[in-house]
């Protein structure tokens, strides 16, 4: 689904990521860890085309990201649901419209997905906040809304950056369950997190691989996780 071939990235100073090669096959479940500032967010952005590798080749769904125009990138984003670390919304629209935004933007009729939407909102515990504006949400509620927005279109792949940073343990398990469910439906999942407990919990439910960024390159974490 996503392939990195000898990829390096630098923001202008020294290289942050060096010579990374990786294949994320369709239907796989990956965790990404590493200390704060190691480059997890950067790595994810390389995967969904928000950043272009300074060296090497990244391809998504078979096409090289370097060759993609803006419209191709837009099309890619509809196939990949993304949860940003700093969850941003359209602050003037209520939560339910924000969660449904991918449908709006791709011209899909929201009417037919209404049941889907309210089910999803109740799963992430936001039924009561459906009509609230994003600035009125608590930190954890924002993250849950962002995850709901990322999965509403049943995308082929879900990329989530620290989706449980502000969320208590019970709710985190609930969100994990949602992602595991999607993975069982064949979707590809990639999650950056520093929460080792979450990773352990996931490993009991699916066969997840854990990647770790260390010394500017990617390692497969051992069985200690």
């Amino acid at each position, binding site marked *: 689904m996503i392939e990195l071939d000898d990829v390096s990235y630098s923001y202008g100073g020294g290289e942050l990521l060096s010579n990374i090669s990786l294949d994320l096959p369709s239907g796989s479940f990956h965790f990404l860890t590493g200390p704060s500032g190691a480059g997890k967010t950067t790595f994810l952005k390389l995967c969904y085309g928000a950043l272009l590798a300074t060296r090497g080749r990244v391809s998504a769904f078979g096409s090289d990201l370097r060759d993609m125009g803006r419209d191709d990138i837009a099309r890619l*984003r509809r196939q990949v649901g993304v949860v940003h670390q700093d969850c941003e919304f359209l602050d003037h629209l209520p939560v339910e419209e924000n969660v449904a*935004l991918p449908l709006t933007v791709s011209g899909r009729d929201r009417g037919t997905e209404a049941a889907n939407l309210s089910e999803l909102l109740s799963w992430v515990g936001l039924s009561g906040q459906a009509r609230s504006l994003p600035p009125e949400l608590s930190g954890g509620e924002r993250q849950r809304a962002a995850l709901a927005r990322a999965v509403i279109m049943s995308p082929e792949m879900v990329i989530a950056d620290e989706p449980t940073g502000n969320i208590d343990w019970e709710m985190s398990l609930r969100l994990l369950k949602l992602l595991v469910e999607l993975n069982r439906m064949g979707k590809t999942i990639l999650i950056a997190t520093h929460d080792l407990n979450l990773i352990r919990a996931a490993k009991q439910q699916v066969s997840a691989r854990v990647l770790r960024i260390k010394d500017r390159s990617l390692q497969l974490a051992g069985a200690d996780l």
Partner: protein
Amino acid sequence: MNVIGDGLAIVRGDAQADRVVPPTGHTAWLTTFTAGAMAFLAVFALALSLATGRLAERWSNELARTATVRISAPAGQEAAQVQAAERVLEQTPGVAETRLLDVEEQRALLEPWFGPDLPVEALPIPRMIEVIEDRQGYDAEGLRLRLAAEAPGAVLDDHTRWRRPLVSAAWRLRILGWLSILLIAGAVGAMITLAASAALAANAQVIRVLRLVGARDVYIARAFVRRFTLRALTGAAVGTVIGMAAIALLPRASEEGGFLTGLGFHGWHWLLPLVIPVLAGLVAFAATRQAALRSLRELM
């Protein structure tokens, strides 16, 4: 992203796409108000241009008939000198027409000075030729010299030439009016571009979110362009209407002299200011579109 598609999108509208751009309170008012104020000023500049145009036209016409050639010669030579003078005048570039005044006309001209009972026939009154000049006017000095050579009894009297600078002033005023319209159009364009850029910059988050969920640039740009074009259109329409109302309510210049009939629009000229909002809308469309495309390119 093609211009026509964008233009159509504005007319067609898209309730969904409209909602994704936040109602940007102050910037919205700024745009609308700017467009309105500028349209108001443009109406006045237009009225000024048209009025000074009319004024200049009239003054030119009146000026054209104010010079005379006076021929005093001994009785026998008079007819010959009149002919000579007329020949000279005919050959002078800038002279459109000449006309020999008859006795009755001369009496009418002199009436203010002597009253109606003047025995014109008994007086040694010189003959007079009215000189009607064209737009460019003639070279008075050259004409004088030629007259002196060919019809020594003829004297060119263009004592109303002093009005000429007035006419050129009126023409200049008209040019000034058009210049201010151009200036206003430029200022509106710049202001709306800047307002649109400011709005786009202030809405970087909106753009990031829309990109994240897979909105194409054309979708984002159109939402902004539509918003700003409609605002400029509304503002300019309101400003134009207020401006036209103000002009309609302006006290009429008294018509007695018929010389300067005030600042109003005449006849079909009332349709001219209606072009202003349309132009403002077009300017806003072009300005916002360009600003949106640039902002979207910049904001990676």
